[in-house]
Each structure stands twice: as structure tokens, then as C-alpha cells.
């Protein structure tokens, strides 16, 4: 039976998708702007015979996820910014343990307590991480309520298939806004976890899940294997949007909610005859460097737009370096204020004239 479109708030959409994806346990601690996820699941998980636990802290929540994930069952937590900061130790352990689980990170403004406004200040937190050691937190960034649903599914699937923690990186705007969306059926096959998960050593050798590795060579091999996995994820599970990139002279790079506003500005620019396109990475980590590199070789310049002081900008610059001698400009605004289509359009026009038509001098921030 095909499900109908309904008016859905981003946070509720994520929560409903988690249930639809077969999430068996949820552990979380309240923080605005994502508290509706836990509220919804506290009511509906028991109805499905699933488990909701109000953790005493985010430190506890992520470690409950470690335990729950070690049994092979789908598990999730959700949080925001300063509270995701508390989870970094646990995420490093979970990555090293190769335990599947999903973290929903609904960014607010920072640093510190910041405030509850939308922000993209936690791109670094998600993709570079605060946990110790060599690991990556695989990260997908939606730009709509529908993508919140579809990518929640993707996060569960990728986490289970590759045995790794996966982050859905949304922001306060996506969490709080309402728009029509469909919570469809979970589209991915179930991945058998029985070869490694803990369920008691009945008729088999005991299993041990840990990040500790006393053999030097063993630790090296483990980390190398993890990074082979990240390469496979980039190869097999990459998701991105290219809009009007073909024939463009200037390409905008942006992710998440601000990319959606930037897309409207790109449409306006095209209407006005400016050859502008948009590249929106949806898989942020591992970063799709090769795609940005190939775009860089065909354009006169790149304008990176973010709701922060220039975080993804560093990955874009690294992708351009060595393959193209083009300017990478930046237009950003930290901590809480969305940019309008008009503001972004003006910046596009200014940058276009400077780079493509070589008319103006300065731009940015």
C-alpha cells in the first residue's frame, strides 16, 4: 500500500523513519532543537514492542548505544551540538569496535551553549570528530523533511552493512520545519549480523567486541581495514545533488538546509543568464573529493556557502588544490541567522562578476 504525503515536522519525520527502519532501541537525553525525536519515540517505540530509555546524560546514551549495537540490533540516539560533543569518546570506541548504530545530530548555534537557532557549525564535529584515533564518522546531510526520512533509512542500512556508526547531520531549521513528506517503506535489505553479534556463546566460541588491541601489527591492520571500509562507502553509498553544473562557469558548493536556499538563488541566476551551478554533497564524510576535483577542472571558480565560518570550505579547497588553479570563494554566516535567497543571489552575482567577468575587486563575509 502506497503511503500518503502528509505535513510533517523534520524531527517527527526522523523518529517515524527510525521506527519504519526497524530501530529496536533508542537512548537519548533532551536538548533543543531535537527533543521531539525522543518524545515521539517514548510514546511509539513501546507500541511496536521496541525500547525507549531516557539516558541520564549523552555520555551514558552513546555508551548504551555501544552496548545495544553490540547485539547486532538496530539502535539510535539523537542529540545536538554541545551534547554531541559529550559523545565523542563513545563514537571513537564504537568506530573502533565496528559496531553499527545511528546518531542523529540536529545542529544548533555554538560554540558552548550557543543557542537553539539553526547552524552548520558542527560540520567539523561530525566529519573531523573529537574522538581520539584514526576513524571517520560516516555522515549524511539532508536538505528537506523528505530527505530526513530517506537518509535515516540510508544511515541504518549503511551502519549495518559496513558495521560502523553513521551520523544524520540535520540542523534546527530541518528539525523544526514542516513540509509535505512520505514515510515510505524501508527500502533496503536486512543485513545479517549473526556472524559477529553478541547473544551468548551457545554452541560456539565466545566473542569479544573491543577497540583494545595489544598486538601492534593487529592494531595497524584493524585501522587499515576500517579505512578500506570508508573507501567502499564512498564508492558504493555516495549520494549527492548536481544542479546545472554542466556548462557552469561558477559552481556553488553547499550542504544541508542552506544548500536548498542556495539552489533557489542559482535558479534565479540562471534565469538572469549567469552560468551558475550547484554541487550539494549529501554524503559529507568520507568527502566526495574526486567529484569536486572534476568540477574544479571545468569551471572558473567555486563559491562555498555555509552557515558557519567556513568548515566544509577546507574540504572543498583540498579537493581543488593540485588539480585546478581557480579561486575558491566563501560566503558564510555563523551561529543562527539563515541567509535569504536574495542575499545569496547578490553574493553569487558579485562573485560571478569578480571571477567570471573579472569586473569587481573584493567579496565575501
Amino acid at each position, binding site marked *: 500500500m502506497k503511503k500518503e504525503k502528509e505535513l510533517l515536522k523534520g524531527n517527527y519525520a526522523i523518529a517515524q523513519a527510525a521506527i519504519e527502519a526497524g530501530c529496536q*532501541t533508542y537512548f537519548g537525553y533532551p536538548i533543543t532543537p531535537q527533543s521531539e525525536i525522543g518524545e515521539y519515540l517514548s510514546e511509539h517505540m513501546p507500541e511496536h514492542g521496541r525500547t525507549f530509555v531516557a539516558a541520564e*546524560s549523552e555520555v551514558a546514551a552513546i555508551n548504551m*548505544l*555501544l552496548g545495544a549495537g553490540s*547485539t547486532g540490533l538496530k539502535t539510535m540516539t539523537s542529540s545536538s551540538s554541545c551534547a554531541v560533543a559529550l559523545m565523542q569518546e563513545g563514537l571513537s570506541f564504537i568506530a573502533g569496535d565496528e559496531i553499527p548504530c545511528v546518531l542523529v545530530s540536529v545542529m544548533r548555534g555554538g560554540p558552548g551553549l550557543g543557542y537553539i537557532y539553526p547552524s552548520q557549525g558542527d560540520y567539523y564535529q561530525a566529519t573531523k570528530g573529537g574522538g581520539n584515533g584514526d576513524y571517520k564518522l560516516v555522515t549524511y546531510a539532508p536538505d528537506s523533511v523528505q530527505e530526513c526520512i530517506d537518509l535515516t533509512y540510508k544511515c541504518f542500512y549503511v551502519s549495518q552493512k559496513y558495521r560502523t556508526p553513521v551520523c544524520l547531520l540535520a540542523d534546527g531549521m530541518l528539525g523544526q520545519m514542516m513540509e509535505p513528506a512520505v514515510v515510505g517503506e524501508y527500502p533496503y535489505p536486512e543485513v545479517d549480523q549473526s556472524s559477529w553479534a553478541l547473544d551468548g556463546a551457545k554452541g560456539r566460541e565466545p566473542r*569479544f*567486541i*573491543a577497540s583494545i588491541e595489544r598486538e601492534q601489527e593487529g592494531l595497524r591492520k584493524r585501522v587499515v581495514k576500517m579505512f578500506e571500509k570508508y573507501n567502499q562507502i564512498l564508492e558504493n553509498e555516495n549520494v549527492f545533488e548536481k544542479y546545472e553544473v554542466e556548462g557552469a562557469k561558477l559552481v556553488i558548493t553547499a550542504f544541508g538546509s542552506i544548500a536548498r536556499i542556495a539552489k533557489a538563488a542559482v535558479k534565479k541566476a540562471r534565469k538572469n543568464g549567469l552560468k551558475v551551478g550547484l554541487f550539494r554533497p549529501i554524503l559529507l564524510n568520507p568527502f566526495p573529493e574526486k567529484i569536486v576535483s572534476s568540477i574544479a577542472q571545468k569551471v572558473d571558480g567555486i563559491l562555498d556557502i555555509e552557515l558557519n565560518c567556513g568548515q566544509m570550505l577546507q574540504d572543498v579547497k583540498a579537493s581543488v588544490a593540485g588539480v585546478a588553479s581557480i579561486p575558491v570563494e566563501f560566503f558564510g554566516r555563523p551561529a543562527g541567522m539563515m541567509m535569504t535567497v536574495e542575499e545569496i543571489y547578490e553574493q553569487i552575482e558579485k562573485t560571478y562578476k569578480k571571477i567570471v567577468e573579472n569586473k569587481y575587486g573584493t567579496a565575501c563575509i
Partner: protein
Amino acid sequence: MEQLVYKKPDSIKDDFKISFCPGCDHGVAVRLVAEVLDELGVREDTIGVASVGCSVFSYDFFNVDVVEAPHGRSLAVATGVKRSKPNKVVFTYQGDGDLASIGIGETIHAMTRGEKVTTICINNTTYGMTGGQGGPTTLLGQVTTTTPQGRKVEVSGYPLKVSEILKEVDGTAFVARVTLDSPQAIMNAKKCIKKAFEAQLKGLGTGFVEILATCPTNWKMTPQEAHARVRGEMSEVFKPGIYKDRVSEAK
């Protein structure tokens, strides 16, 4: 006629190598837990949680599925395991630094929720693995590598009495503090460990046993002197006994 009078419990691995220092009580504690798992017939249904400290290598010994927790987080990890697999037997094996210092929050909250798990805590009044620093249970006057003048109240406060705190937590069903300084004490410790597992198996709440244990290496004592210390100044501050027993009440 041959008669088998002593054997390795099935819940201890065949190829185990003891990595604890000579005279340390960890080995006895691990064996008692393994004997209890055998006697309850739950080895194949058990998932253990290893913590950080000298207890981290418990996975070398226990012949059961084990997941490693970050320092202090064993009871949060155990919560995740038990809530996912409610029919499995879940236990944590932790030191006092892990449970009573960095992990006291997770400990109190998991037990307040009455998680149906069993927790064994080795209290040796020091951080053993890192070389004998002062910790939450270090006695007043005790010399450690970070209390070279002896623990002073005005600098480090008082030793934390875990069993006394956890008996007041509504979700615990069994709380006891035991020693391993004599055969009689060891027999008693085993009975308490068994009850702490029965608390879980009967669904009554969390079972908790605090074991006053020796650390001859860091205390710079012989094993005999170390056990005398357990019997003496340690037992004066940390009084052994059964603090709460809903298991017997439920019988």
C-alpha cells in the same frame, strides 16, 4: 578410584593466562564469578562487560561473550545490552576507580532504573593498573603516588562508601561488601555473588557485590600483609556485610 575434587570452571577459558600480579585478589574474584555462572547454568546465555583498569583483561579469562566499555561506562553499556537482549544474563566486572570515580553517575542511574544486571566491583583503594594513584576509595592517611603525604581530608576529601550509597538506591535488589582474606570469606563472597546474579535472574533489580581486594604491588606489601590490611584498616572503614537482600526476602 580417582575422584575429581577440583577443576577449572567451564566459564573460564581453557587457554587462559593469568596476567594479575602475585597475591592480587582479582584471580580469586574472577574464578568465583565463573563458578557461579557454571552453577547457575547460564554460561551460554551470558554477556559480560569489561571495564578499564586491571579488570579490562577479564575477557582473557571469562569463557563468555564480552563487550568492552570505555572507562566508567560499563553500566551504560550493560544497560544497552540488557535492554536489547532482556533474556540474556548481563554482568559488569569493574574496579573502584572505574565504578566509583569516573563511572559513579552511570552506576547510580543504571541501578536507580533497576537494570536487571549484576555488577562486581573490586575495591583495592587505588588505581592499580596505572601504578597506584589515589582514588575515590583511598583511605585517609594512605600513601599513594598522588597522595605522597597520605590522603588528607582537606586536600582529597573522604573515601567513598559505594555499598552504603547503593543500598539506598531503590533499584538495587542485592548489595553486599565481602572480602577474600580467608577460605571462609571466599565461601561467603561466592554466596553473595550468586545472590547478585539471582537478583537479576528473578527480575528483582540490580545485584551488586563490592569486593575488598588486595593490591600487594602498589601497596608494597606481601600478600599476607595485604590481607591483614583488608581485615584491619580497610574493613574498619568499609564494613563488610549484606546491606540489602531482596533475593532472600522474595524466597
